[in-house]
């Protein structure tokens, strides 16, 4: 069994920063990610190729240390024993042991059901961005980008750079919220520069505020979307080949929960509870990045750095980063308030709209249930391979349910991995 002083799950900004901090202290570090390349969501496709200078810097520094081992295309399934993780690659499985564990599992998009959302051509906003970075063909395609949050602008800019024609960006937040958020950016000048760069890149693309996708239509694949413009104005039809629609991000907390770490609800998100050292409620397990609350790359880097230093016993050095972390935490709070979801979004699904995509369970079958548990037992909602990762975020908005337990393994596992 391979043993590491410090094992890190997630090779995004938080995990890479943690690995770097810990490796500089001499620890033997293993860093696991289910993607074929490091970088996480924002640095997808490899940190060495990113325009954000911090990414190649971190990457090259990590390449120079010989005490960091990358385990890519490796997914963490469960913990067979305390201080051990069972991992699976496409062809094999292994058990890894550790002294300290840092969870940097990031976030996923919140996807909400509306009529037509299962049509091929409808994706998440960050979802299509991720697919495009992997070579998904978008040259000349008409794309509507919709949902909520600053990720819509980042996704639209990436898609446009890949040759897509952005028909419109549709943001559910209203103008006063967006203006308040804009003024709040004065506290974080680097974010203003980023916003201005994105706006210049997307010049000429309609940005529809106070609006949301009502439904998607198509025969076999997507052809058009119906957009609700504000409350007073009517609906508009937009022709498109792709709809990239995501309603903000949700922390990936399942692995932490499965390991016994406490979670809490903050800003309408379930987040892993950590102390000032990023330490969770379980001895020797830390959490950094989006798992402790969605806050963007700067917060993820600060938290990762602190976790890596704290896990290798360098508390004085870690303390020097507290002020930076506090400032990005404030930014995260403003982000959550500005892009809070409007009530109307929970009324889009019709009785025949699928809510659980894995098991084809419709809204009409779910809305009469009183909670996640009874719905799950009687309809199989959340029992499919995504294990409630997608429908859980939807049922929370639709019915106020939160998935109650995390089943082990946390991802579909081959039988051989379990009985080996």
């Amino acid at each position, binding site marked *: 069994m391979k043993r590491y002083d410090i094992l890190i799950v997630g090779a995004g900004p938080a995990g890479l920063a943690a690995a770097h901090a810990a490796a500089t202290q001499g620890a033997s570090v293993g860093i696991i990610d289910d993607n074929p390349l490091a970088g996480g969501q924002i640095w997808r496709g490899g940190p060495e190729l990113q325009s954000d200078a911090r990414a190649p810097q971190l990457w090259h520094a990590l390449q120079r240390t010989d005490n960091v081992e990358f385990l890519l295309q490796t997914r963490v399934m469960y913990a067979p024993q305390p201080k051990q993780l069972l991992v699976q690659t496409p062809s094999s499985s292994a058990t890894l042991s550790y002294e300290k564990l840092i969870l940097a599992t990031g976030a996923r998009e919140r996807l909400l059901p509306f009529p037509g959302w299962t049509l091929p051509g409808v994706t*998440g906003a960050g979802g299509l961005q991720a697919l495009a970075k992997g070579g998904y063909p978008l040259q000349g395609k008409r794309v509507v980008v919709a949902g909520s949050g600053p990720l819509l602008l980042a996704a639209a800019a990436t898609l446009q750079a890949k040759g897509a024609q952005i028909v419109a960006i549709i943001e559910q937040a209203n103008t006063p919220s967006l203006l308040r958020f804009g003024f709040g950016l004065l506290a974080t000048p680097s974010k203003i520069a980023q916003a201005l760069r994105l706006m210049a890149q997307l010049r000429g693309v309609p940005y529809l505020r106070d609006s949301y996708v009502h439904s998607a239509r198509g025969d076999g694949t997507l052809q058009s979307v119906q957009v609700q413009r504000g409350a007073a104005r009517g609906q508009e039809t937009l022709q498109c080949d792709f709809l990239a629609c995501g309603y903000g991000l949700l922390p990936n907390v399942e692995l932490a929960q499965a390991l016994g770490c406490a979670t809490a609800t903050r800003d309408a998100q379930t987040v892993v509870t950590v102390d000032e050292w990023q330490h969770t409620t379980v001895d020797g397990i830390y959490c950094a990045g989006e798992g402790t609350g969605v806050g963007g790359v700067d917060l993820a880097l600060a938290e990762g750095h602190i976790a890596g230093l704290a896990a290798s016993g360098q508390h004085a050095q870690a303390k020097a980063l507290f002020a930076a972390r506090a400032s990005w935490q404030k930014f995260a709070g403003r982000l959550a308030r500005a892009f809070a979801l409007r009530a109307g979004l929970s009324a889009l699904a019709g009785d025949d709209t699928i809510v659980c995509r894995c098991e084809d369970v419709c809204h009409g079958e779910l809305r009469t249930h009183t909670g996640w548990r009874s719905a799950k037992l009687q309809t199989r909602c959340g029992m499919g391979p995504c294990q409630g990762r997608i429908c859980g975020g939807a049922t929370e908005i639709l019915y106020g349910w939160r998935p109650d337990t995390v089943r082990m393994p946390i991802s579909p596992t081959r039988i051989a991995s379990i009985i080996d």
Partner: protein
Amino acid sequence: MTDLSITLHIDARSISVEPGVTVAAAIALAGGGVTRLSVHGHPRAPLCGMGVCQECRVTIDGRAHQLSCQTLCANGMHVLTASEGAA
């Protein structure tokens, strides 16, 4: 600059792609982009792009239920999508 140095098989077709292209992208390049059929038989295609939704599952080199969005194309790879009856 395109370097179509990787050739793989998707259902009955052969396709050449650049290094770094995912199987999900190659499936879309080769045609419709449909990866699996839902339990009621409806076509589904990648949704999250990041290994969470499981909509992009295909059979790769005989192994069922592989996530095409998190797998890079490799020379000689055989991919079966829903159109060939795999899910």
